[in-house]
């Protein structure tokens, strides 16, 4: 009954590589970067990279929230609508109180997001509605609320206080605040998922819900929690979105849920639950960012952009699963049964 790996050095490199789940997507990113930089000299510049990071920061935050939901075998389709609603509400409050501190705006946004997430969690755990249906419903409800709240109007850049615009774009620490927000959030989530019991419970619940119940884990509470966290982070993302784009419109973040799911899945999160890592999702978000950036840089016709984007994402997933399967096969071939 031993599965102790024997210690030849070549083999142990292999083992370490195989344990590193993100190897496939990393390879793909590097290949893509080489290809794009051959076509476009502007790609490998610091400015361009800052631009990419700025573009994926909000995506990374929300994709990480989405990841926690997916790990529990759920999905949150309402993230785009939550971001839109929070962006709109906070912007309207800022119209009334331009002197308000941007941090208060962040707090307000997160409170609203938290309430929206609680509602999602409530329908799913207490109401027993499957997550995909529940959040499909609130996707429309929350987006509808944006229209009702704004009466079809929007908030423009000139109406927003300067201090609020600097929330995302200011660079007191060298990098734009937005990127720092994403890094801090990612670090917190990494710690939460790997070093706290509630975080570990998320994996257990997704890996085997029945066993989790029997093992004394509060399954319903854990599921409720991930939707609340998702709401909280969407609240943050909504405020950051309004600050970065200096506007709140009725179609803010429309369709964003698909990008968050894509980033998570490309980053190796199992869509059937149970596994997924912060580093993987960050790489997934980075890959999406690089793809979008590259498609503009190499000047692909706008008619082709969407199709090219989708194909590249598919290709990434295929390359990743091929590399992974090869590694696993080699690995199991070496294991004594």
């Amino acid at each position, binding site marked *: *009954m*031993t*599965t*102790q790996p024997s210690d030849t050095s070549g083999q142990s490199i292999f083992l370490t590589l195989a344990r590193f789940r993100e190897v496939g997507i990393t390879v793909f990113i590097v290949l893509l970067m080489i290809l794009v930089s051959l076509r476009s000299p502007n790609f490998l510049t610091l400015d361009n990279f800052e631009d990419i990071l700025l573009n994926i920061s909000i995506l990374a935050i929300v994709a990480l929230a989405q990841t926690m939901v997916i790990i529990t075998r759920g999905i949150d389709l309402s993230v785009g609508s939550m971001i839109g609603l929070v962006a709109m509400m906070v912007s309207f409050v800022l119209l009334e109180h331009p002197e308000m501190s941007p941090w208060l705006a962040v707090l307000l946004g997160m409170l609203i997001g938290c309430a929206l997430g609680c509602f999602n969690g409530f329908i799913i755990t207490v109401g027993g509605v499957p997550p995909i249906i529940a959040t499909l419903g609130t996707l429309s409800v929350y987006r509808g609320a944006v229209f009702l709240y704004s009466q079809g109007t929007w908030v423009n850049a000139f109406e927003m206080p300067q201090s609020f615009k600097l929330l995302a774009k200011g660079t007191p620490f060298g990098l734009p605040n937005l990127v720092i927000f994403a890094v801090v959030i990612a670090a917190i989530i990494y710690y939460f998922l*790997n*070093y*706290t*019991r509630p975080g*570990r*419970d998320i*994996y*257990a619940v*997704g*890996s*085997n819900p*029945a*066993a*989790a*119940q*029997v*093992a*004394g*884990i*509060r399954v319903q509470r854990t599921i409720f929690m991930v939707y609340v966290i998702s709401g909280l982070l969407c609240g943050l993302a909504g405020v950051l979105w309004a600050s970065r784009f200096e506007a709140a419109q009725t179609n803010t973040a429309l369709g964003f849920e698909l990008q968050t799911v894509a980033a998570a899945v490309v980053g190796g999160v*199992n869509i059937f639950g*149970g*596994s997924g890592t912060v580093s993987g999702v960050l790489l997934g978000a980075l890959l999406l960012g690089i793809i979008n950036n590259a498609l503009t840089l190499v000047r692909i016709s706008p008619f082709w952009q969407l199709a090219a984007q989708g194909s590249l994402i598919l290709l990434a997933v295929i390359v990743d699963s091929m590399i992974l399967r090869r590694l696993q096969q080699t690995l*199991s*071939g*070496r*294991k*004594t*049964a």
Partner: protein
Amino acid sequence: MADHILSMSNIYKNFAGVRALQGVAFDLYPGEVHALLGENGAGKSTLIKIITGVHQPDDGDIVLYGEPVKFDDPRASQRQGIAAIYQEPSLFPDLDIAENIFVGRQPTRAGGQVAWSQMYHAASELLNSLGVHLDPRTKARNLSVAQQQMVEIARALSVQAKILIMDEPTSSLTLAEVDDLFRIVNQLRDAGTAIVFISHRLEELFELADRVTVLRDGAYVDTKLISEVTTESLIQMMVGRQLSDLFPKLDVEAGDIVLQVECLSRDGAFQDVSFTLRQGEILGMAGLVGAGRTDVARAIFGVDAITGGRVIINGQPVTINSPQQAMRLGLAYVPEDRQHHGLVLPMHISHNITLPILSEFASQGWLDTGQEQQSATEAATQMEVKAAGLWQRVRELSGGNQQKVVLAKWLATKPRILILDEPTRGIDVGTKAAVHGLMSQLASQGMAILMISSELPEILGMSDRILVMREGRLTGQFSRTEATQEKIMLAATQAVEQV
């Protein structure tokens, strides 16, 4: 003896029309091993799930440490010092061994931070004390059935419970592992832990138990000291009648060679396995769990690819790349891991049974459901599946009855060559005799049977010839007359060179 630690009386439990428990009583003293015995579906697992709060009784009283209690969920019972190993696998495939052991109770540092190194350390120690040498960082999905079982045992032991419940912990373990487990159970008993133990292997009860309570069809039969009972009287209490013949093996004249395996290898699993199987023959395959027997069966059936050697069926060399191909060649394989490979748990019994032979009932794209039902009924009756009806979902069946459905399913394909992997694991004595009788009967009708089993009495009682495997190689081959328990154990455990 000290006072009761647990006493239950008049426990009733119904599941949507199924009367699982009807007025059952059960009690437990500290420092005793109390066995729970009964046929498949008698209500043993239901009773222990009521103790742990997975199910709530419809009626009845539970008194724990002198106080009446009512558990709403397993969490509540755990806090009161009750730990359990359930019959159905309850591991988390995506988590590693250490976390599977400590799930929900991971050791933490002062600030609530999960202390991984401490957890790995504790897991290693626990596994070592069980005689298992596994890297605690291995993901549970990569473990064999026996290894998974050991992890579940380690989980239950890690709690240091006052009451430890084990529902068929030994069914997928080998003798050495069972010995390790019993040694630990005895230590716990001496330290005052109360232990509830369920097993269909009566010899284990005589080795371990102090008292035994027998259930039959959800009703309470009796509780006795182990010194007051014999194998016969226990069987009598369980099934309500005497069982005459435990291994009803018929003598069958072996016919032509139907399956020939030559120097079969799969890198990392087994090497140079050669044997023949004749019509009407039951070929037993003995060995310790992990000896590579399941790997050989899977390779023959086309589940795993081979890396050397060949398979000859009815004189024709064949390459089998998929189970579908194997089935077309007249093979059937009943896997050991029924929850994962044998059954579709949310489907009805009848649909599970007819799954591999659906095409037989199809004409122009339509299913003849009447014929399908009839076929399923036949197979289920033959196997004595105990259920409310064939429309019941397999998930709701008792563990032993799930195993019977797996058998029924493959028998319905009417194979010429049948590979059985631990066919009677978790099956009660009465049905076991029925399964053995059926195997014997099928062989006499000309079916060739390869039977992998870790139970020596079964191997010795049922096989015409016996192969022994050890660490991926064939290490012994005996005829029915020359085989003894000692010879087989020797070949299975020591480095005897190829016979």
